[in-house]
């Protein structure tokens, strides 16, 4: 049994079975990652290209580590060294790299739909490592993994997703994934950060953070990405922090046993205060750890599953 998808482009296409399989397999890789020798030969001889058209130290490191621990051979292509910025079309770049017989592309891009465009131009498997304001499915998987490890289940969880919702690929993939697994996301942010059609996702959206915090199991803080806004839609960091930042007062409103997640990197003093970021309920480092294991699982399942069709 393999995943129902050939590529990991978004979370909308994933079934509950797919997600469960990724999380279960991720657990096995978490065990591998806890060993002294954190490497297995599962993808020995496979070639994976990390095509990062938008800089990202964290996500790329996580993928690189996952690839090394699976014994895959990997090649990094970045925005500054890629010919993409020299006027070559993306399709040409992908066809050129594909001609070197690679097995997988891991792609990060600033433009929505780029991974889909890559998939159209190669026979290799494509993993979306974040495309513009659209989707970031591997982030959603590590988030779900972290929540499931803490609560033991996902069904019935209430998750407040707080911040710059309309520019967030993290929200874009986490919301459908949570819904597929039977959890209930609630979107919280200033109106200028809200998505224009929450009904499309079938979720509620509000600006009243204090009313939401006591109701939820997970307080998921989004990074406020000033570089992605295309215009100032909040007056200042200071005001955002007062209205939507999680400080000790808001932490005290949280339900017992509830947790805080953040995709990183955190803007301390903006969406989260220092003392809260280091509190035991903040699972930020658990998320990072889960990231390597779940990405190993995704690559293993996608590359292993490919052979079934042949």
């Amino acid at each position, binding site marked *: 049994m393999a995943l129902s998808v050939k590529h990991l*482009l*978004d979370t*909308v296409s994933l079934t509950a079975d797919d997600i469960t399989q990724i999380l279960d397999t991720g657990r096995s890789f978490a065990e591998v990652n806890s060993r002294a020798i954190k490497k297995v030969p599962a993808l020995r001889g496979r070639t994976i290209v990390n095509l990062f058209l938008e800089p990202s130290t964290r996500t790329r490191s996580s993928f690189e580590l996952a690839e090394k621990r699976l014994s895959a051979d990997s090649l990094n292509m970045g925005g500054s060294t890629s010919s993409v910025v020299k006027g070559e*079309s*993306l*399709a040409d770049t992908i066809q050129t790299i594909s001609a070197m017989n690679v097995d997988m592309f891991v792609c990060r*891009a600033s*433009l*929505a*739909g*780029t991974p*889909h*465009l890559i998939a*159209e131009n190669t026979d290799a498997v494509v993993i979306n490592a974040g*495309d*513009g*304001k*659209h*989707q970031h499915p591997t982030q959603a998987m590590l988030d779900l993994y972290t929540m499931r490890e803490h609560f033991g289940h996902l069904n019935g969880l209430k998750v407040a997703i707080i911040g710059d919702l309309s520019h967030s*690929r993290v929200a*874009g993939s986490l919301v459908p994934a949570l819904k597929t697994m039977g959890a209930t996301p609630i979107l919280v942010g200033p109106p200028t950060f809200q*998505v*224009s*059609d*929450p009904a*499309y*996702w079938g979720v509620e959206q509000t600006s009243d953070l204090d009313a939401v915090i006591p109701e939820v199991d997970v307080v998921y803080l989004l990074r406020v990405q000033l570089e992605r806004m*295309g*215009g100032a839609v909040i007056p200042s960091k200071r005001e955002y922090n007062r209205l939507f930042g999680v400080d000790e007062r808001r932490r005290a409103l949280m339900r017992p046993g509830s947790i805080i997640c953040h995709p990183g990197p955190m803007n301390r003093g903006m969406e989260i205060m220092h003392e809260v970021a280091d509190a035991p309920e903040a699972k930020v480092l658990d998320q990072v750890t889960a990231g390597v294991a779940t990405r190993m699982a995704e690559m293993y399942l996608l590359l292993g599953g490919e052979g079934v069709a042949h």
Partner: protein
Amino acid sequence: MLIRNVRSIDPQVGLDDVLDVRIVGKRIAEVGAGLSAGDDEMLDGTGKVLVPGLVDMHVHFREPGFEYKEDIASGVRAATKGGFSDVATMPNTDPVTDTGTSVRYQIDRGIEEKKTRVRPIGALTRGEKGEALAEIGDMIEAGAVGFSDDGHGVQSAGMMRTCMAYVSQFDRAVIAHSEVDSLTKNGVVNEGRASTRLGMFGWPALGEELEIMRDIELCRLTGCPLHVAHISTARSLELVRAAKADGLPVTCEVTPHHLFLTEDDITDAYETNLKMNPPLRTPDDAVALIEGLVDGSIDCIVTDHAPHAKHEKDCEFEIAAFGTIGLETSLPLVLTNLVLPGRLSWQRLVEAMAISPRRILRLDPVKIEAGSRADLTLVDPRATFTVDLDYLESKSTNSAFLGAELTGRPADLFVSGRHVLVCGEVA
């Protein structure tokens, strides 16, 4: 030439009858039943429909400046293929068509092709920069049929007032591309469901509607005829309806893609041929626009024919060029979706695609009666075909309707009596 036994439809003269039509030289010589053939070449019109030559008053032919997308020769072939005797070309060329000389250039280039006529629309402001009036009078002398900064709106209300006041001394319409840049900035798909689903910056309906409101008030102030280009929302239509009810000289147009496609047609495959300016809107908007076309609130159908080279569309959606080609598919789409299913009458079709655009562009009317100029389109309402690369004549292939299976197409076209489209093939 004698076209025999053809259903001839022209609401201008109250005509809808199976008749024979004789063309002599550049003019219609005779319209009647059982005309004698004499020495004339015969064209059997059985089962076909003859209408006054179609006009598309909103196309982009890209010459000069962007000949790699389209030039006047290829654009004219596409127009002839689509059954159009006249097309009005938008001035966003390079350099911008903002002088009498550049208007004259396009007309002359069109004449050389000996097919569909090219009727240039001049820029309202120099370089379409929205800063200083272009030489409107000079362009009218050269043959400009209207004025527009199409491609973007005139952002300054004061500048737009000046433009409309100045144009009001001539008998021409100002054609407004209605878009408030500060609202639509960065937008690539309709704001709402599509922008949420696809994760891209939204283009709010208000960005169009607000500028239409402003321009209607400027029309009221200046008396200058206002033609609203490619309306795309139900509210835009309401605004135009209200202005007409007030007796203002306001008209508007709609494209086939805003009638027959919606934001929901853009899938996770990010089809760049569906990236439009204005963007594809909601299904409710499309329904309202069709109603507006049927009841006459929308004056005409235009294509906004916007050719782009492969490399400008074969890329990420957010950086792809806006627009679709449309000349070759406009009539077939309207026939397939509206006329043949009985939702739009042939009379309304003729008004929207032949009569109204001539009126708005101040062109001489063309009628199916003796003495009129022989600009005639013969439609085969039963021919079925697939929109594929072979069918297209444009230099570019960025059609939003590639692969569509359509029924009804232009079979023959006469421009001043010259038989330029013969059995669906450009002569």
